[in-house]
């Protein structure tokens, strides 16, 4: 009986997590490297980064990389997803709570982008506007092959 309850609770928690957090309903990978980008609608360089991060996500999602976005303003999930859609964000959104669970310190400046290992260790913190090229070069510098 207790086991059944646990299974139901776990299932509910997992479904809630996806509903609340994901732009594309994909769970956070435990096998891939991650690029986690803190962004806000009002941040001009964040808006400029979006097509680059979309491209990175598109080109490497089948490989060993997952691109995740965190809305800095910590808006309700539905509002974040509306803004993300309006801004053309095509990579997955996670909540600030999930970002905290990944041990990411809340940034002072935007955009801030973290590179995380598959086991969610922070490998690099990048401040300022990134491009697909600059991020790929960063992985190269870190001797990480995707």
């Amino acid at each position, binding site marked *: 009986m207790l086991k059944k309850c646990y299974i139901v609770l776990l299932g509910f928690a997992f479904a809630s997590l996806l509903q609340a957090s994901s732009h594309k309903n994909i769970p956070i990978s435990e096998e891939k490297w991650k690029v986690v980008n803190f962004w806000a609608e*009002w941040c001009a*360089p964040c808006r400029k980064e979006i097509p680059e991060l979309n491209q990175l996500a598109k080109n490497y999602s089948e490989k060993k990389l997952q691109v995740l976005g965190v809305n800095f*303003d910590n808006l309700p999930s539905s509002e974040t997803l509306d803004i993300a859609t309006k801004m053309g964000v095509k990579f997955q959104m996670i909540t600030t709570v999930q970002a*905290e669970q990944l041990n990411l310190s*809340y940034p*002072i400046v935007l955009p801030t982008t973290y590179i995380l290992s598959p086991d969610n260790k922070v490998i690099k913190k990048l*401040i*300022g506007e990134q491009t697909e090229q600059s991020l790929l070069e960063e992985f190269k510098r870190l001797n990480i092959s995707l």
Partner: protein
Amino acid sequence: MKNISYLVISVLFCINASASTGKVTELHSPAKENSSLSRLFTSAQGDVYLSWVESEEGKAQLFYSQLSDASWTKEKIIGSGDDWMLHWADFPSVLIDEQRVMAHYSQKSQAGKYSFDVKTVFSHDKGNNFSKAYTLNLEGVKGENGMVSLLPLEGGRSFATWLDSRTTAKEGGTGGMSLRGATFNSTGDIIKQWELDNRTCDCCSTDTAMTKQGPVVVYRDRSDTDIRDISIVRQVNGEWTAPVTIHNDGWQIKGCPMNGPAIDAKDNYVAVSWLTIKNDVPSINLKLSKNGGKTFGDLIEVVNGDINGRVDIEIIESGAVVVSWFASNPENTKLMLAKYSFSGKFIDKLVVAESKSLRRSGLPSITSHENQIYMSWTDIDTNKVKVAKITWDSAPSDIL
């Protein structure tokens, strides 16, 4: 959630176990639920005011109230809209000078786009009736205009400074914002306006204060190589000086620092505080001037390390300088105050409030009356603006 609120309240009354001589007392707040974006200010007559925004179902309302003894007068509404742009670092302000009330808010100017106009409204009967809304930025140019700071001038005039997108828009949205200033007559018409700097940081608030010589403006500058240090421009004999960097921090960032400077002035005594980051370590700096901001003394590092910045500053009646900021680490966020003599000597430091959710509470505001500090912020757990009074047992030692 309740536990966190209790924690904040208990912190308000019990935290001063350290050597601080400051006492924090929470005041009743006139703001209701769903309130945020508060500002405190003291009029030339010495009256303390609070302005704030209440939002419900997409509609925002801007209110203000006056502190009378330990309570607040019935709030007055300045305006409302369902198309306002509200952001934790860029939000409405109110200025009151006897019967005159001037306020600003940002209104979305293009559906579906991130562009907005700065609107100003005026009242001559202490907020009972307001004028039509005037547009502060160049009308017809769609872009991000905002980060407004207001200042009362003599003769019923007012001064406003703001970040303007007219050049950004011309450059196809890739250029920098410009800093502009304007004076208004008592009916709200622009008398004169200036471009004060043609390239500034896009996403940091401005601040302004009145010296004996005239208004001064501080803002985060932006060089061609994206050095974003703090600059000052001063009006002397009716003319604006060229921008001068207050301190060569050399903070280079191709992004949004989200941290504007704060300034206060009394006669020719000027105090400026700001956040900068060097080698990934943030610090809050303070510089003091005794000649109206023409030159400044040595750099004073108020704090470094686990901080978010979002500073405010006040010179209190005794001449002491009080700086506020957020201190934050993964476990907790604290709303802090530090007090310095005008010669730059540290006097006191204390925690005003503390909770994990404070990190998301926007931009705290401080003002002073005599030697007391008033502070407002948004309590995320109750979704309400809070106000506290901070007093010190001992009389400050440093007189202007």
